[in-house]
């Protein structure tokens, strides 16, 4: 019998740090660590020296000073006496608005163009090819400018609606399309509730930590942010743990209770830290973050949700009846009724009426205004990104084997149904990953808004605020943090969605 003996454990020699693969990894990482520390300290030291020489400091205090400029598109209440922080917040919301609108519209354009490019209609296919190639191969900045110019030139100014014999007239007497924007009727409530102003409570006199006299670090803010981040991280980890170990008790709980548990894990540390530093007497930062809650909207949403829930209960009842008796009771009018009757009732009770835009003074007033700069940017981004999405859609459809189409056709499906029921659901799996990066690109490209005068966050924080205060480093830093957060959130959510539609393989 032969026995395998372990080789004698070698004693550690210094040369093993380079020659032995077991230790070499540590050597490399150690060298890399040193190099990183060196680079960071080099840059940090340069920064400190440069700022010192010019007698400048890094400080975010300018965010609390009055901004002094006006913004035309104000999703929240804002005046020029508000702070730079508030102006940045308005900019952030404007960015999110144009990004959301753009993503939806780009998807519609992209799917249409991608499908039509494969159509057997020669003219339409060629036209779509021209569209895709023209937009893919010219810089987005040039397209934004060109589309903006077209919009200004092709639509009439409000003055064209004036006078006895106006050269332009409103669509259906309700919608005015001008080169300043589109004015549409909007719901108003004569009998509605007052909005509730909400001022988020602010931290107690922030503890400041001065970093070599150059950076003023607001310790409280960081603590709160860390608590929030840590809580969310803990919730994600808990979710992973529960999934991995298949905790049975948890699975028995109803969905909303499970959600509640996660929410508690995520937000408890934040709430605790936040309340520790709470200061009820709000000051500047607090009023910068104020917003108002529309009770009307909440009531309507509640009624709608309730109606949908009851409608679902009716459907479940109908399903059950069908399973038991084999006959499905006719419930569609019930289901429509429980949603719409209370909704119409609540609109009536709130005194809803349509506010029509009308020419008053220099401009149209009343109704809802969608400004020209928003339309131009929205349309430009959508049509540009749409060209890329069209290519992704086309590639996705072409990736599906021809056999699938033939199989579906042999089942007797019509071409439209083949596309909707067989091809697109499969193509979706190929399309979604590149779609995510197109959404990210669109959001990032929205930073070119300033070219058309749309006040997004690059226009406020990275534009006029930076221009007026001269605080370049701070503004650019905040700007990058904002875009990074947005990008990471979009890719997180889209990856979750992608995982849910992904082919489940066992």
């Amino acid at each position, binding site marked *: 019998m032969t026995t395998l003996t372990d080789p004698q454990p070698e004693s550690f020699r210094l040369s093993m740090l380079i020659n032995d693969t077991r230790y070499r990894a540590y050597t490399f990482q150690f060298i890399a660590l040193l190099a990183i520390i060196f680079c960071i300290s080099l840059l940090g030291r340069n920064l400190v020296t*440069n700022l010192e020489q010019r007698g400048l400091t890094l400080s975010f205090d300018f965010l609390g000073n009055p901004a002094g400029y006006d913004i035309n598109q104000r999703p929240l209440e804002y005046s020029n006496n508000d702070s730079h922080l508030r102006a940045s917040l308005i900019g952030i919301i404007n960015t999110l608005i144009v990004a959301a609108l753009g993503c939806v519209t780009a998807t519609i354009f992209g799917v249409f163009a991608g499908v039509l490019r494969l*159509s057997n209609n020669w003219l339409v296919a060629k036209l779509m090819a021209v569209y895709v190639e023209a937009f893919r191969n010219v810089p987005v900045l040039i397209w934004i400018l060109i589309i903006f110019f077209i919009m200004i030139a092709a639509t009439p100014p409000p003055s064209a609606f004036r006078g006895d014999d106006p050269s332009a007239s409103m669509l259906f007497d309700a919608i005015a399309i001008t080169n300043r924007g589109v004015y549409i009727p909007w719901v108003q409530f004569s009998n509605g509730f007052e909005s509730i102003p909400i001022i988020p409570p602010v931290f107690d006199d922030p503890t400041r930590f001065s970093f070599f006299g150059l950076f003023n670090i607001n310790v409280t803010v960081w603590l709160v942010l860390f608590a929030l981040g840590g809580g969310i991280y803990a919730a994600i980890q808990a979710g992973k743990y529960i999934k991995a170990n298949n905790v049975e008790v948890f699975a028995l709980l109803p969905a909303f209770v499970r959600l509640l548990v996660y929410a508690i894990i995520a937000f408890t540390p934040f709430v605790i830290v936040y309340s520790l530093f709470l200061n009820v007497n709000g000051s500047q930062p607090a009023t910068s973050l104020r917003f108002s809650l529309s009770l009307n909207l909440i009531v309507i949403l509640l009624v709608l949700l309730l109606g949908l829930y009851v409608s679902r209960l009716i459907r479940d009842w109908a399903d059950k009846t069908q399973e038991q008796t084999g006959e499905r009771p006719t419930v569609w009018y019930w289901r429509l009724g429980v949603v719409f009757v209370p909704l119409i009732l609540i609109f009536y009770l709130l005194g809803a009426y349509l506010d029509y835009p009308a020419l008053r003074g220099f401009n149209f007033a009343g109704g809802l205004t969608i400004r020209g700069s928003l339309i131009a940017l929205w349309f430009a981004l959508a049509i540009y990104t749409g060209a890329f999405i069209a290519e992704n859609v086309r590639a996705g459809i072409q990736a599906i084997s021809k056999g699938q189409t033939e199989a579906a056709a042999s089942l007797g499906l019509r071409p439209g149904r083949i596309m909707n029921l067989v091809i697109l659901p499969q193509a979706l799996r190929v399309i979604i990953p590149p779609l995510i990066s197109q959404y990210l690109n669109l959001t990032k490209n929205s930073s070119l808004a300033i070219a058309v005068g749309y006040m997004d966050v690059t226009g406020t924080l990275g534009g006029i605020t930076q221009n007026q205060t001269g605080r*370049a480093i701070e503004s650019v830093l905040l700007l990058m943090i904002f875009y990074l957060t947005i*990008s990471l959130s979009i890719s997180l959510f889209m990856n979750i969605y992608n995982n849910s539609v992904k082919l489940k393989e066992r």
Partner: protein
Amino acid sequence: MSDTHAQSVAFVRNTEIPPSLPPDTEGGVIKWVRENLFPNVLSGILTIVALYFIIRLSIFVVPWIWNGVWGADSLTNCREVLGGKTGACFSVITDRWHQLLFGAAYPRDLFFLSTMTGVPVADLVTPGGVRENTNFFQEFFFGYWRPVLAFVLLFVAIAPVLFSELPRKMLITTAIYPFAAFWLVWGGSLWVPVTILASLAIAYFAYSFVVNRSFFLGALSFLAVLILLLFDPIAMLINAAEFGRNSLAFLGWQRAENALPWVTVMEQNYPWLMNIFPLNAHVVEGLSTISSVSLASVPSRELGGFMLNMILGTVCVSLSLPLGILLALGRQSNLPLIKWVCVIFIEFIRGVPLITLLFVANVVLAYFLPPESNPDLIIRVMIMITLFASAYIAEVVRGGLAALPRGQYEAADSLGLEYAQAMRLIILPQALKISIPGIVNVAVGLFKDTTLVSIISMFDLVGLIRGPILASTDWNGVYWELFGFAALLFFVICYAISQYSQWLERKLQTGHR
């Protein structure tokens, strides 16, 4: 059977009828139109909508281009010529084409232009900028021969990379091209690019000498030779020492604070030592005394127009390739520290818009660099765009690495190859090959994004249009012609590249459909 009937039945035809034409609806234009434009109701409606759209567009565009004015010297003049008709004012392009293509102030080679056209130099320089004595082609090919030649050579240099059928020896032109193009565009002494090229060749020689022992040592010796020849190792050492001293003083070590700066010590005691490096500068000086081959030097601030977009695009893509490959390898690495550094870098860069990185280049980077250095804006922008592109290229290459079958990695391991060898000889050649279409897409996207430098006050094609040209009293108010011209230039280049990419994809497509 038919034979019998042929004789017996009178009404059976025994000759063949000549083939008749298909009915009108089943052939020619009508068939094509019916099948391709009106196969069903929905499609027919689409066709009509599309036709309406095309006709509406051409009603605007055709007369506008047809009536275009080419020779006027200002917009006011254009309007007079048109006399109220709709029409383009293309004169702005004939007046300012040299700025649109080469930048606001890129100098013409007057001597060469004068030699080739026979027009005396004095007549070429007219105060108003109107090029009266020469025509467009003479100006373009003789006046601006340097950037034009660099552009033409670009195709020669890039061809062997793009088309694998070409002989591999042509790759030498690719290696030489950056230096030739640098010399042509920036000018200066020929010896500068030549000595840098020679230093690189020597460093490569050193590398290939050592690489058989270990790739790590090879890379080290490459760097060492390069530093010795092109940089100033003594200054680097002094700086490192200085940095250490400053850091100690910063942390409160009194003695370090009071010590004399190293630079002063060295300058006082060993002045000759401070002048040895960089060796390359001495060689250039020496060669220049023997024979000075040089072109008029052009400061980088005078580069502009479409040429600036081309330079930024090509330089940044080529620099970002090696960086992107390293990042992709780093992201796949087993070493957690290196992996996380790469992940954070890539995700950070991909998460922010290029415009914020350009703001960094323009307004922030200056604070992070040593005060005396202050590199040109164009170099700072190149650094940021290269970092930007490398993150995207890293993701493409990572896709290529992931697409390789696991067996390739295992095969390399089983041959006993170490990491560097396995990557260099087995993995990367295959991974890069399948990543080429993706890399080309990144390159096209990046080339288009170079127009964003106009927002940070650089005079690229868009910057020139929005800045000096639209601000001049002559051309204030001309938009469509200028932006149309810019769009056309970009379209031509990008469309050509994307067609190449599609061709390549088809060629690499070995799967079955």
